[in-house]
C-alpha cells in the first residue's frame, strides 16, 4: 500500500478541475438519495450511483466491487457505467477478470481501510494490478469509496478519469455521502430481503408441517392457518368470532358429544395470555365423520414491549395414539373381567368384540379345547352365524379340520386365504360358503407351559392373508384368551378342591370359625353352629363361643385364647362343650392368628373337631384298662397268699389267744385286774393291726374310680410294698436287697398303681429265682435320680433271665413263662407306667438274671417342695 495515496479528509489538497459545483453536488446528492431509496435492490441502487456520479462529475468509468460469498475477495459486480468510449470496455473486461484480496489494488485498499482512497495516476501506482489495462485505455486518476452497512463493507465503488487529477476532497466527500446513503438504503433493503426470505421459510415450514398451526391476533383474527390445520379442522381460516369456533370446526370435549366451551379453547386461552399444555380435543366435522383426536399446546404472542398481541396454537393429531390407548384400556377391562371372575363366556365375548372393533369387516371367534384334548367347545363368536357356531361346537381337532381344528392339532398358526379352495376346509366348505366366510386364520391359544387351551380365529369375507396389524391383534387376543381360559381351569380345579375339602370337613365333623378380636365378633360355619348349638342367625362373639365351654375348662380356654392373641401364635385345646339341654361334646380346637400387612392381629381362625365318639371309646378303653388292672391286682393278691394269710393271722391269733387267756383267768377266779387290762389292751392293738392289714389289701384290690395322682416318694412306696410281700419273700427263702437314692425326686402318680407295678415286678422276680438254690435267691431293688428330672427304679433278679432275642417281648399281651400266668401282668405294668408319662424296659443282666427298670418324670415343682 502506498502511503501517499491515502486521503486525509481534513487536510487534503484542493485542485480546481471539472468538478461539480457545490450546488450541483447538493443536487446530485439529493437526486441520488431519492433514486437510491426507490431502487428495489443493491444492484439497481449501485447502477444509479455509478451513472449519476459519472454524469455529474465527468468521470468516465464507474464500477462496483462486491465481496464474494465467503468474504475473502472482492469480485467485480455486474453493474458498471462507461461513458460511451469503446476503449474503456477493455479495462472493464480486465476488471471483470480480477478479484482483490483486502489491501490489494484500489478496491482491496478501500475494502481493508473502510475509507475512500484517491490515486492521481494509476499507471504510476505500485499497488494497482490493473496498470497495464489502464495504461492501454489512458485511465489516470481514480477514486474508491466504501459502501458501509454498519461497520461492514458491502461494496466498493471506483471511478476513473483519463487524466491525472489531484485529490478533490469535496468530490470525495460528496461521493462518500452518496455512498453512505446507499449504505443505509442497502442496509434496509437487505433487512427486508432477509425478512422476506425468513417469512418464506416460515411459510414453507408451516405448509409442509404435519402439526396444525394457527396464529390469531388479540382480536381473534387468524394470522396463520396452515394446511394441516385446514385438514384437521375441515376448513380454513374463517372470520368468525372466537365464540363460534367450537361450532364451526366441530370441537368437542373428550366425551365426543359436548361442544368444547369456547372460552376454554386453547387458542382463546393463549390470546388471553395463558400457556396451554396438552389439551385434548375431539374433532368431528363433515370431512372427518369418524372424528379425530388432537392434542394442543398454545402460547400467547407478545409485542416488543411485552404487550399481548395474539396467540399461537400447535395441534397434533393423536387419533392413532388415542386408538391404541383405548385399545389398551379395553384390553385391561377384559383383564379386569378375568380378575373379577366374570364367566369365561363373557370374557371371551368381550375379547372377540374388542378385536373386531379394531378393524373393519373383521369377525373373530374363540374355541376352547376340551379337557380331553380332542374336541373343541364353543368359546365366543358373537358375530358369526349361529348355525356355523353350532356346527363347530364339539368338532374334533385333527390335521385337516378347518383352520382352528388344524391349528390346535398342529400347535401353530394356520392361515387359510380361501376356505372355498383350501383342502383343510373340505368338511366345512359348504357351511362357510352359506355363512359368507372366505378367509380364516386361526392361531392356537397356549398356556405358559405350552399346553393347547384353544384357538383364536379371524374371518374375512375377502380372500387374503393377515396384515401385520391383524397379526398383532391375534397375538394380543391369544395372550388374553390364554389367561382367561387358564384362570377358569384353575378356578374349576379350585372349586373342585373346595368342594372336596368341604365334603371332607363335613364328614370329619370339622367346624370352621373366625374370631375378630378387634371388633369382638366371630363367624362360624353352619357345621360349627350345629356343633356349638347356635342358631344360624345369632350374631356370634368370642364370649358366646367360649360360653359353651364346660365351666371347669372355660378359664383355661380363655387363657389359651389370650395367649394366642398376645403372641399371634397358635391355639390348641381339648375340652368339653356344654350344649343347651345339657348335652356334652368333647372337642379339639385348633386355631392360629392371622396378621395384616402391618403385622397387627387381624383374626384368629381355626377348626373345631368333635371327638366325642373317640373320647367315648377312649373312656371305655380306660375303664377296660382299669378293669384289667384291677383283675391283675386281685390275681396278685392270690399270689401273695402267704403274706396275706400271715399278716392277718398273726394279729388274729394274738387276739384269740388273749381272749382265751382272759376267759381262763376269769374262770379260775384269780384274775389280776392289771393283767386283765393288759390282755384287753393287747387285743385292741392287735385288732387295729389286723384292720391295717385289711385296709392295705383293700386298697390294692379296690375298684377305684377316681385315680388321683399325688406326689410320691418312690423309696417309700418300695418300702411299703416290700412290707406287704415280706411273708412271701421269707416263705420262698429269698432275699431282697434295696439300694435307695435319697435324692430321688418325687413323682406324680397314683400310689396304688405304682405299688401294683412294684408288686408285679417283685412277684415276677420271686418266681424267677425260685428254681435257684436258696443262697442265690436274691433280688436287688435300687432307685436313682436321673438329673433330678426323673426317678428310675430297677428290679433285678438272679434268675433264668428273659428271652434272648427280644427281652421286651415280655411286655406283650399273653406272654407268659409261667404255667399259671395270664400273661397280662407286664402289659398292665407297661400301660400304667406309660399313662404316668414314663417308660419301662427289660433286659438281661450282664452276668445272669433279668433287670426291669422304669423311669417316671419328676413331679412339677418338685425341687421346690424338696427345698421347702
Amino acid at each position, binding site marked *: 500500500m502506498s502511503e501517499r495515496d491515502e486521503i486525509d479528509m481534513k487536510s487534503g489538497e484542493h485542485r480546481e478541475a471539472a468538478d461539480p459545483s457545490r450546488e450541483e453536488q447538493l443536487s446530485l446528492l439529493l437526486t441520488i438519495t431519492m433514486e437510491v431509496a426507490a431502487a428495489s435492490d443493491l444492484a439497481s441502487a449501485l447502477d444509479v450511483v455509478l451513472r449519476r456520479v459519472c454524469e455529474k462529475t465527468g468521470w468516465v468509468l464507474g464500477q462496483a466491487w462486491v465481496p464474494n460469498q465467503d468474504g475473502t475477495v472482492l469480485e467485480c459486480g455486474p453493474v458498471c457505467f462507461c461513458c460511451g468510449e469503446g476503449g474503456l470496455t477493455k479495462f472493464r473486461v480486465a476488471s471483470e477478470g480480477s478479484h482483490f484480496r483486502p489491501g490489494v489494488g484500489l478496491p482491496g485498499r478501500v475494502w481493508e481501510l473502510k475509507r475512500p482512497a484517491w490515486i492521481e495516476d494509476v499507471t504510476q501506482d505500485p499497488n494497482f494490478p490493473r496498470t497495464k489495462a489502464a495504461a492501454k485505455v489512458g485511465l489516470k486518476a481514480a477514486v474508491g469509496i466504501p459502501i458501509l452497512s454498519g461497520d461492514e463493507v458491502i461494496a466498493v465503488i471506483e471511478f476513473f478519469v483519463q487524466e491525472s487529477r489531484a485529490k478533490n476532497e469535496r468530490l470525495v466527500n460528496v461521493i462518500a455521502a452518496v455512498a453512505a446513503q446507499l449504505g443505509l438504503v442497502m442496509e434496509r433493503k437487505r433487512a427486508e430481503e432477509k425478512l422476506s426470505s425468513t417469512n418464506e421459510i416460515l411459510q414453507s415450514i408451516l405448509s409442509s408441517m404435519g402439526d396444525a398451526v394457527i396464529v390469531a391476533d388479540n382480536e381473534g383474527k387468524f394470522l396463520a392457518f396452515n394446511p394441516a390445520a385446514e385438514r384437521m379442522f375441515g376448513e380454513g381460516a374463517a372470520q368468525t368470532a372466537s365464540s363460534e369456533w367450537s361450532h364451526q370446526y366441530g370441537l368437542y370435549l373428550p366425551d365426543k358429544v359436548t361442544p368444547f366451551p369456547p372460552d376454554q379453547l386453547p387458542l382463546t386461552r393463549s390470546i388471553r395470555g395463558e400457556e396451554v399444555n396438552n389439551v385434548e380435543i375431539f374433532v368431528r366435522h363433515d370431512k372427518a365423520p369418524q372424528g379425530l383426536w388432537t392434542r394442543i399446546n398454545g402460547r400467547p404472542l407478545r409485542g416488543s414491549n411485552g404487550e399481548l398481541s395474539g396467540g399461537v396454537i400447535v395441534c397434533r393429531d393423536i387419533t392413532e395414539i388415542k386408538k391404541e390407548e383405548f385399545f389398551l384400556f379395553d384390553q385391561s377391562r377384559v383383564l379386569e373381567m378375568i380378575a373379577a371372575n366374570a364367566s369365561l363366556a363373557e370374557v371371551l365375548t368381550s375379547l372377540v368384540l374388542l378385536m373386531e372393533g379394531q378393524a373393519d369387516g373383521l369377525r373373530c371367534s374363540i374355541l376352547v379345547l376340551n379337557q380331553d384334548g380332542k374336541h373343541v367347545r364353543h368359546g365366543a363368536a358373537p358375530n358369526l352365524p349361529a348355525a356355523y357356531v353350532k356346527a363347530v361346537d364339539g368338532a374334533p381337532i385333527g390335521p385337516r379340520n378347518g383352520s382352528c381344528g388344524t391349528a390346535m392339532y398342529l400347535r401353530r398358526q394356520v392361515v387359510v386365504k380361501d376356505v372355498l379352495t383350501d383342502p383343510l376346509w373340505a368338511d366345512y366348505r359348504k357351511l362357510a360358503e352359506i355363512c359368507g366366510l372366505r378367509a380364516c386364520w386361526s392361531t392356537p391359544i397356549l398356556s405358559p407351559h405350552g399346553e393347547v387351551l384353544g384357538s383364536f380365529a379371524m374371518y374375512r369375507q375377502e380372500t387374503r392373508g393377515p396384515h401385520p396389524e391383524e397379526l398383532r391383534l391375534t397375538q394380543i387376543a391369544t395372550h388374553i384368551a390364554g389367561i382367561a381360559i387358564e384362570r377358569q381351569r384353575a378356578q374349576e380345579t379350585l372349586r373342585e378342591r373346595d368342594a372336596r375339602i368341604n365334603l371332607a370337613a363335613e364328614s370329619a365333623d370339622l367346624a370352621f370359625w373366625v374370631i375378630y378380636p378387634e371388633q369382638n365378633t366371630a363367624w362360624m360355619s353352619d357345621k360349627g353352629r350345629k356343633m356349638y348349638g347356635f342358631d344360624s342367625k345369632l350374631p356370634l362373639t368370642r364370649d358366646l363361643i367360649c360360653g359353651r365351654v364346660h365351666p371347669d375348662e372355660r378359664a383355661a380356654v380363655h387363657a389359651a385364647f389370650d395367649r394366642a392373641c398376645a403372641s399371634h401364635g397358635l391355639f390348641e385345646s381339648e375340652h368339653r362343650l356344654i350344649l343347651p339341654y345339657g348335652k356334652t361334646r368333647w372337642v379339639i380346637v385348633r386355631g392360629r392368628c392371622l396378621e395384616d400387612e402391618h403385622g397387627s392381629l387381624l383374626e384368629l381362625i381355626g377348626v373345631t373337631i368333635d371327638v366325642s365318639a373317640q373320647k367315648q371309646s377312649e373312656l371305655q378303653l380306660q375303664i377296660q384298662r382299669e378293669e384289667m388292672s384291677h383283675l391283675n391286682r386281685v390275681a396278685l393278691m392270690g399270689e401273695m*397268699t*402267704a403274706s396275706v*394269710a*400271715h399278716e392277718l*393271722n*398273726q*394279729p*388274729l*391269733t*394274738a*387276739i*384269740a*389267744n*388273749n381272749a*382265751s*387267756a*382272759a*376267759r*381262763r*383267768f376269769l374262770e*379260775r377266779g384269780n384274775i389280776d385286774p392289771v*393283767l386283765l387290762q*393288759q*390282755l384287753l389292751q*393287747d387285743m385292741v*392293738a*392287735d385288732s387295729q*393291726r389286723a384292720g391295717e392289714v385289711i385296709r392295705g389289701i383293700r386298697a390294692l384290690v379296690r375298684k377305684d374310680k377316681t385315680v388321683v395322682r399325688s406326689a410320691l416318694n418312690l423309696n417309700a412306696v418300695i418300702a411299703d410294698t416290700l412290707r406287704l410281700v*415280706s*411273708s412271701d419273700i*421269707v*416263705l420262698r*427263702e429269698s432275699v431282697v436287697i434295696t439300694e435307695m437314692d435319697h435324692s430321688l425326686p418325687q413323682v406324680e402318680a397314683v400310689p396304688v398303681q405304682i405299688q401294683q407295678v412294684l408288686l408285679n415286678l417283685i412277684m415276677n422276680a420271686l418266681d424267677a429265682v425260685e428254681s435257684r438254690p436258696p443262697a442265690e435267691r436274691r433280688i436287688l431293688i435300687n432307685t436313682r435320680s436321673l438329673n433330678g428330672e426323673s426317678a428310675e427304679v430297677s428290679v433285678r433278679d438272679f434268675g433264668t433271665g428273659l428271652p434272648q432275642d427280644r427281652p421286651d417281648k415280655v411286655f406283650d399281651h399273653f406272654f407268659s413263662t409261667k404255667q399259671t400266668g395270664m400273661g397280662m401282668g407286664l402289659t398292665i405294668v407297661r400301660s400304667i407306667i406309660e399313662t404316668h408319662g414314663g417308660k419301662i424296659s427289660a433286659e438281661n443282666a450282664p452276668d445272669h438274671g433279668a433287670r426291669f427298670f422304669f423311669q417316671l418324670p419328676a413331679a412339677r415343682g418338685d425341687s421346690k417342695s424338696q427345698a421347702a
Partner: protein
Amino acid sequence: MNNSNESAEVCLVDDDPSVLRSMQYLLASDGLAVHAFNKPEDFLAHVSKNRVPVVVLDIWMEKITGLEVLARLCALSPKTRVIVITARDDLAARATAMAIGPVAFFIKPFNDEKFLTAVRAALAQAHNM
C-alpha cells in the same frame, strides 16, 4: 407264772411280739410255766444248756425259719416235744415238720382248748419218759 411243777416249763418261740405275748398269757391262764423266746437263736442257745420238755414253735419267722430251728432242735434235744404253730397252711411245711417229728401242728388262729390239751399231753409225755 410258774405253777406247781417247776420243771414243767413250756418254751415258746415266735418272732411276732404280740403273738408271743398272747401265747404266754394263754399258757399262763392254764397254769403253765412259760419261757418265751422272741429270737429263735436265743431259744437254741437255751436248749443247748437246759432240758426243754416242750416247745411251742412258730415255723415262720423272719431270720431263721421254724423248720431250720426244728431241725437243729432235733439234733440238740431229740426228746423235746415240739408243737408247731404257723400262720399259713403250707402243705410242704406241714409235711416237713411232721417228718421231723412234732407232736402237734396248729394253724393260727387256733382253738385254745385243743392247743392247751396238746401242750399238756406233750408235757405229760415228757414227764413219763
